[in-house]
């Protein structure tokens, strides 16, 4: 149905990333009530954002794509952009930052990210990458909602992809897991532009000599750029993004967090016999129990 026949072989890609608490052991800190201690836990580029950045870097190495990275957040979130630039040798970094964005749920966040991406390269982004989900919010909703706001084809759980520049087509393999059922590997084809959320199992492969050479070149460039990331950074507020303030932040968020509580302990379902882990005789008894069970004897 598209009537515009672009002869260009250029490829523009964008990545949306998030600055997240570092949940890795040793870095994360919790309050006594089990909630995250945000003050003590440092923030990093989220692990899924990092994978999305790698997927964009693949487009750079393989197709010479121009790469832009965007994030919504307070000024400190520019460190996520810097870390992403190191991974994907970004040509542009965009921070969407405005006090009124605070408190946004996924819909209000998508409003900002969508507006931001439409500002990149005059709205001519061919592929947008997002991570699978953020490790703090964990909803996995922001990517697809941004895609819908942009009017882009959304492809989720993408494990690898290739681009047919001539015909402006993207081919992707998706891993669909229907829990309690089975998994499906699906191969799809869609005309550009597309929005991809990258599956955690994504890995880039660079097989040819020319790709490896390009990889090295861009990796070197990325390092230099990330050291001077401010040169590539643009900060955009509500007005510059041209967004209706009623659609962002708290006013634009349909949902609220009503309460947070400890999940009450369930009633004990079994009565455990407690065994001392250093007592060899007791453990010997446990082992003979285990062998009995495995011999197929019915318990209880």
């Amino acid at each position, binding site marked *: *149905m598209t009537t515009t026949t672009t002869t260009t072989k250029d490829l523009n890609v964008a990545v949306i990333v998030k600055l997240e608490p570092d*949940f*890795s*052991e040793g870095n*994360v800190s919790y309050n006594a009530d089990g909630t995250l201690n945000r003050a003590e836990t440092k923030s990093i580029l989220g*692990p899924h954002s990092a994978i999305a950045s790698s997927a964009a870097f693949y487009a750079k190495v393989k197709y010479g794509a121009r790469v832009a990275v965007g994030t919504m957040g307070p000024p400190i979130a520019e460190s996520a952009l810097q870390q992403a630039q190191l991974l994907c040798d970004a040509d542009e970094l965009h921070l969407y930052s405005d006090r009124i964005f605070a*408190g946004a749920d996924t819909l209000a966040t998508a409003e900002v990210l969508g507006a931001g991406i439409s500002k990149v390269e005059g709205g001519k982004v061919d592929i947008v990458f997002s991570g699978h989900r953020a*490790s703090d919010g*964990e*909803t*996995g*909703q922001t990517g697809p*909602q941004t*895609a*819908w706001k942009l009017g882009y*084809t*959304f492809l*989720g*759980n993408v494990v690898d992809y290739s681009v047919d520049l001539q015909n402006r087509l993207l081919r992707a393999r998706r891993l*669909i897991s*229907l*829990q*309690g*059922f*089975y*998994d499906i590997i*699906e*191969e*799809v084809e*869609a005309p550009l532009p597309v929005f991809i*959320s990258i599956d*955690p*199992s994504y890995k880039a492969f660079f097989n040819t000599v020319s790709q490896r050479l390009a990889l090295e070149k861009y990796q070197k460039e990325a390092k230099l750029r990330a050291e001077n990331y401010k040169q590539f950074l643009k900060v955009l507020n509500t007005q510059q993004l041209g967004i209706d303030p009623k659609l962002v932040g*708290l*006013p634009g968020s*349909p*949902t*609220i*967090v009503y309460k*947070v509580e*400890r*999940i009450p302990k369930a*009633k*004990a379902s*079994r009565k*455990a*016999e*407690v*065994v001392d*882990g*250093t007592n060899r005789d007791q*453990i010997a008894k446990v*082992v*003979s129990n*285990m*062998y009995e*069970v*495995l*011999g197929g004897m019915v318990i*209880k």
Partner: protein
Amino acid sequence: MTSKYQHLYVVIEHDDGVPVPVSLEMLGEARRLMDGFNKKYSSDEKVVAVVLGHNVHKLCEELIYYGADYVIYADSPELRSRRNIIDTKVISQIARNRELAAKFSNASEFVKPRYMFFGADSIGRHLSSTVLAELESGLASDINKLVVEDLELKHEHKTKGQAIKYEKTLEMYRPDFSGFLWTTILCLDNRNPANEREYHPQACSIIPGVFAPIERDSSRRGEIVDYIPKFDEHDLRVRVLDRKIVKSAVDFDSHKAIVSFGKGVKDSPEQNIKLVAELAKEIEAEVGISLPISKKPFSVSEGTNSTYMIPDRVIGTSGRKVAPLLYIAAGISGAMQHIAGMKESGFIVAINPDENSPIKDECDIFIKGRMEDVIPILVEELRKQRPAIEVKKK
């Protein structure tokens, strides 16, 4: 009494007419919730299943036996496999369709459904996101408890600090990553005079394996309402070239025993994971993990990573449900989500230094101690006793 927002729409997932388990689970919970609703408020609001597919009329009948009052069935060859764009369009059309709603009750005021459910799996997570972006309302993900309640609320923005009563509000509970905290999400209309805005449906995606389906009852009566979906070429721009069902390399079902590990490996993850593997080998067990482990919170070598710390091995509501003869939980504290995945096991042994951890109430033997100390003794004893048992078998 009629209203702009009515009914609970449940978006059904199926593979060529076979319902994905979460679909029947959602219907079960929808039935329980709306039975309560019908008693408390009004009997006019229904459980409405929404089905997209081709030649799956039989499935629609089944959904009635599993709790649906009505089934809206959009049939087209183009709807045979799941594609986000066209599915989003068709579901949104259905959600906004007053003529359809008029089949269930007085719909003179109908605008959109009151509530909407989706499955929180690879398909439903993204589909719910795009549908709610299209319907411009709120969505909570990964829910495992639901309550309908009248709430009096004060909120900085929603009510501009005034106490306002929100009737028939869906409280959507989601467990956080640790499995020990519950966050309740509400989707609320803005009643702030500065920015009034209505947000319906109140929607969520539901974790597979949490809710029980109701018992199939073929005497249940309901009605199937056909809907002819509208779409154009542009909505069909994604082509599915190939589709393969893959079996995971992880095989819980054919093993008599499963050894799982959790965050208790943290003191020396690399070493401890090796111990777990050794124990598993000794009793020919498959290796499982708890949910936090799949998020790779430790630094371990790539080899260890790729073998064990993968989502396929997660046991619990976010992963697989298992019921082996013997289940050994090493360094697993016993978050509700994990327990739900293993509580049907025959004999459960837990290894944990903390007698206060919830796993103690869910096991038959609680070996108090750190896994690095206990597993070597276990393995040694297993080796010592093995021949005698084999003789006994004959």
